[in-house]
C-alpha cells in the first residue's frame, strides 16, 4: 500500500520559511496520493524559479526544465506515453511572461495535462521584480516605482486559449487546493489551476493578512468560493455552441472580480475531445497503445522507395 510519504523525496528544500510554495507542494503530493496514482506513472514538469524546484521534492518522474518551457516538454512526453499522468508546475512569470506563447499553444491543443501556476505577482528568485500578474499601479517592496503595465488575467486568458478546465485556488487553503487539483487531474483535457500565493519575502501587498481581509472594515476574508454563490461553470452540452460561449463569457467576467472580494473555485469546465482523441481519429492505434509501446522499429520502407520510381 502506498503512503503519502512515498510521494516525498529527501531532497533538501530551500524555499523561504512561510512560502506559499509549501502549501502547493503538499497539495500536489496529497492529490496524487488520494488519486491512488503510482509514482512511476506520474511525471511532473516545471520551469525556472522557486516553483521550478517542485519536482525535486516529489517522488515521481521529475523534469526541471527551462524558463517558461515546461509545457512543450510535458507535451512531448505525454504524446510519447499517453498512459502517464502529466502535471506541470510553474510560476506566473514562467508561465505568463516568458512562457506565454506555450501557455496559449498548449491550451489550444487541449492535451490531457494539468498546469498548476504559483501566482504571487513577483519574480522571487531574481529578487522581487513585478511579474505579469501584478496589477498595474502596484509597487511591491523591491520595486523602485509602481508597475505601469497591465496585469494579465490568467483565467480569462486560459478560457480564451482553449483550456477546458479553468480554476483558481489558494496556496494556504490546502484542502481546497488539493480537491481542485484532484478534479483537474481527473479532467480529460488541458487544465489550468491558478494558485494565489503569498511571497513573504517580496510581495508585501498580497500577504496572508491581506487575503484574510484584516485591512477591511468587515475583517472578512477576501477569498470566497464561487460555487457558494450558485455559480456553475460546467458545460452540460459541449456540442451546444451557445452554452459553451455563455459559460466562457461568465467565467471571463467573474475572473475579473478582484479587490475586496475574490472568487476561487472552478470557473469553467467542458468535456471536449482532447488532442489525443483527435490524433486517434487520424491514427486509431494512438489511444489504444501509447507510442512508446508500439512496434515502430526496423519497418519496411521499400514501398515508399517504390512509389518514387
Amino acid at each position, binding site marked *: 500500500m502506498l503512503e503519502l510519504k*512515498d510521494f516525498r*523525496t529527501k*531532497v533538501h528544500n530551500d524555499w523561504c520559511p512561510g512560502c506559499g510554495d509549501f502549501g502547493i507542494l503538499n497539495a500536489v503530493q496529497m492529490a496524487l496520493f488520494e488519486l491512488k496514482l*503510482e*509514482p*512511476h*506513472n506520474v*511525471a511532473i*514538469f516545471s520551469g*525556472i524559479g522557486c516553483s521550478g*524546484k517542485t*519536482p*525535486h521534492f516529489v*517522488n*515521481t*518522474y*521529475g*523534469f*526541471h*526544465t*527551462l524558463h517558461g*518551457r515546461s*509545457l*512543450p*516538454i*510535458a*507535451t*512531448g*512526453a*505525454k*504524446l*510519447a*506515453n499517453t*498512459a*502517464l499522468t502529466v502535471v506541470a508546475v510553474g510560476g506566473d512569470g514562467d508561465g505568463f511572461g516568458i512562457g506565454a*506563447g*506555450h501557455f*496559449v*499553444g498548449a491550451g489550444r491543443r487541449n492535451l490531457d495535462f494539468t498546469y498548476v501556476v504559483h501566482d504571487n505577482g513577483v519574480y522571487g528568485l531574481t529578487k522581487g521584480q513585478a511579474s505579469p500578474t501584478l496589477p498595474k499601479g502596484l509597487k511591491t517592496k523591491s520595486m523602485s516605482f509602481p508597475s505601469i503595465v497591465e496585469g494579465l488575467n490568467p483565467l480569462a486568458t486560459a478560457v480564451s486559449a482553449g483550456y477546458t478546465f479553468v480554476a483558481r485556488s489558494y496556496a494556504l487553503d490546502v484542502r481546497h487546493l488539493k480537491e481542485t487539483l484532484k478534479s483537474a487531474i481527473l479532467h480529460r483535457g488541458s487544465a489550468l489551476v491558478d494558485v494565489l500565493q503569498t511571497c513573504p519575502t517580496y510581495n508585501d501587498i498580497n500577504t496572508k493578512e491581506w487575503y484574510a481581509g484584516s485591512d477591511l472594515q468587515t475583517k472578512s476574508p477576501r477569498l470566497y468560493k464561487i460555487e457558494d454563490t450558485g455559480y456553475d461553470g460546467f458545460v452540460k452540452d459541449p456540442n451546444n455552441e451557445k452554452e459553451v460561449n455563455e459559460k466562457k463569457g461568465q467565467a471571463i467576467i467573474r475572473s475579473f472580480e478582484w479587490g475586496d472580494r475574490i472568487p476561487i473555485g472552478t470557473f469553467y469546465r467542458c468535456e471536449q475531445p482532447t488532442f489525443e482523441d483527435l*490524433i486517434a481519429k*487520424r*491514427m486509431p*492505434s*494512438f489511444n489504444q497503445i501509447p*507510442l*512508446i509501446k*508500439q512496434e*515502430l*522499429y*526496423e*519497418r519496411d*520502407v*521499400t514501398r*515508399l*522507395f*517504390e512509389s*518514387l*520510381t
Partner: protein
Amino acid sequence: MIGGPQGGGINSVAETFAKACARGGLHVFANIEYHSNIKGEHSYYRVRASDREIHSHVDWIDVLVSLDKETLFGDVHKEYPTHNGHRHEVSPGGAIVYDGALKLKPEDLGRPDVNLYPVPYVDVLLGALKESGHEKELSKFQVMTNTVAFGASMALVDFDFDGVSEAIKEGFTGRKAALGDLNVRAARHGYDYVKTHFTDGFPYKLHSINSVSKRMLIRGVQAVGIAKFKAGCALQTYYPITPATDESEYLEHHEREYNIVVVQAEDEISAILMAAGAAHAGVRASTSTSGPGFCLMAEGLGWASHTEAPGPVIILYQRAGPSTGLPTRTEQGDLQFVLHAAHGDVPRMAIAPGDVTECFYDTFDAFNYSDRFQMPVVILADKFLASTYRTMSIFESANLKIDRGQIAKDPELTNGADTAMFKRYAFTPTGISPRSIPGMAGGIFHTTGDEHDEFGHITENSENRIKMMQKRMRKLDLANELIPDEKKANFFGPPQADVTLVGWGSTKGAILDAMQDLEADGVRCNFLQVRYMSPFPTNLVTRHLTSARRRVLVEGNYAGQLGELIREHTGIPMDYRVLKYNGRPFSQNEVFEGVKDAVKNGTKEVVMAHA
C-alpha cells in the same frame, strides 16, 4: 530549363519532364530557384538529363522554355531589377521556346546563334480545349499553357510522346484524372505544333535508353523522411519554415501507415522541446527547421544535451542568412553556428550529408547515435539538398539495425521499488549512464537543466561539477572512437594529386562532376568531403591533408567555415578558397572555373556569382 512566374506551373512541368526522363532510363538532376513570394515573381527549374550518372547542374542551357517575357529578358524595366533573363545562358546552337503571341523579332532576342521556336501558347491551348469541348473555359484552363510549352519542347528534342503522356497522367490521379487527359491533349497540341511548323531539325535529341535497374526520382526531404520511418521516429514536430516544411508534410502524408505523430508547434522553441520531452519519455523524436528556427532552438539544444536526452534528431535545412536573409535560397552558412549554438560546453553531434543517399543513411544513423550517446544530433542539410531531385537506385535498407542504446534493467532499476532512487546520471567509465524511461517501475529519475548529481538533483558541489562536465563531454570522444572512419569523411580520386579539393555537404555533386573537367584540363585532383563536424575526425582529416600539395576549399558561405574548422582542429590552413554566398548553389562549371582560377592564376580567394 523552364522559367516563368510563380504559380505558372513551372514545378509540375519540370517534375513531369524529370519523371519522363527517369522513366526513359536517363539520369536526371533537377533543381529549382524561386523567390520568397506566392504568385508572380520569376522562378526557374533546371532539369539536366544524361545517359551517364550526373551529380550536379550546369549553368548553360540547351533548351530554354520560357513561359513569359521576363524569363527571356529579366525584369530590367523595373525600378529595382533582380535579374536580366536567361537568353544569355543558352548555349550556341541551343533553342529557345517562347510564346509566339509576344510577337518578338529574332533580333530582339540578340542571339543569332541559337534556334528560336515561337509557339502561340494560347492559340494552341484553345485548339486542345476545342477538341474536348472546353473552348469557353479558357480563363479556367489558361495555366495549362505551361503544358503546351512543355509538349512543344519535347517535340523539339524528339522525345517519345508516350513517355510524356504517361508522366503527365501520373500527376493526375483519382478525381483529377479528367484534368490529366486534358493536359495530355494540351501537350499533344504543343508537340504537334512544333512537329508541323518547324522542320529545321534541331540537333539536340533526347531518347529513352534501356536501363538496367528501376530508378527513383528522389529529393533530400524524401530521403530524410523515409529514414525517419525506417528509424522508428514516433514524433515529428515543426514550425512552418522554408525550406524545411516539405519534409514534415511528407511525414504527415504517411502518418497513418507508419504511426508517426506530426505536430505543428507554436514556435521552434516548442518544437525542439516537445521532441526532447518525447525522447526523454522513450520514443524517437525529431524536428526539422531552417536557420531562423534553429536560432530559437539553441536554448532547447542546450537543455537536451545537458539533461542527456536521447535526442532529438534535428534536421537543419540551411538557407541564406543572416536573419531572414534569402529565405528561398541555399547556403552553407550555419556550420559554425550549429557547432556552437547554446551557451556553455554543450556536447552535440553534427553530421553533414552531401547527397540524397547520405541524407538517408546519416538520418538513420542519427537516431541510433542520439540513443547511444544520449545527446541531440543535428543533420546539416540545405535548401539545395532538400529540394533537388536526383535519379537513384533504390537504397538498401533491409540491413539497417536499430540500436536504442543502454536502457536500464533490474537490478539497476531498484527492483521495481518506487521508493528507492535511480541514478539516471550514474558515473560510468564511458560517460554513458543506462537510462530508465518514465512509466518504468523502479526507474524514477529527476532531471534538470541545473548542474545535478547522479540522481538528477541540483547540486553546486565543485567536485561533482567537474565530474559531470567530464562525463558529458567524454561521450563525444566515445562517439569518435566507436564510429568507423568511412562514415566520417569521403575521399575521392587518387591518393596523390596536384590539387586537393576540400568541401562538405551539398557541394559534393558539383565538385565530383567538376573533377572530371579539371582532369581533362590537366589539373589532377582529389577531393576530401568532410561529413562529421562533431565529433570532428581530426586524425582522419590530418592524414588526408598533410600529404596534399595544394588545398582548395570549396564552400557555400562567406567565411570559409569548414576551412576555419579544419584549421582549428588540425592547424592546417587552406591555400585557396572558392566561395559562394549569393544564395545559389555551385554548378559543375562554376567549381571548374573557380578552382582553375585559384590554381592557374593563383587567386587566393575566388568568389563565384552565377545565379
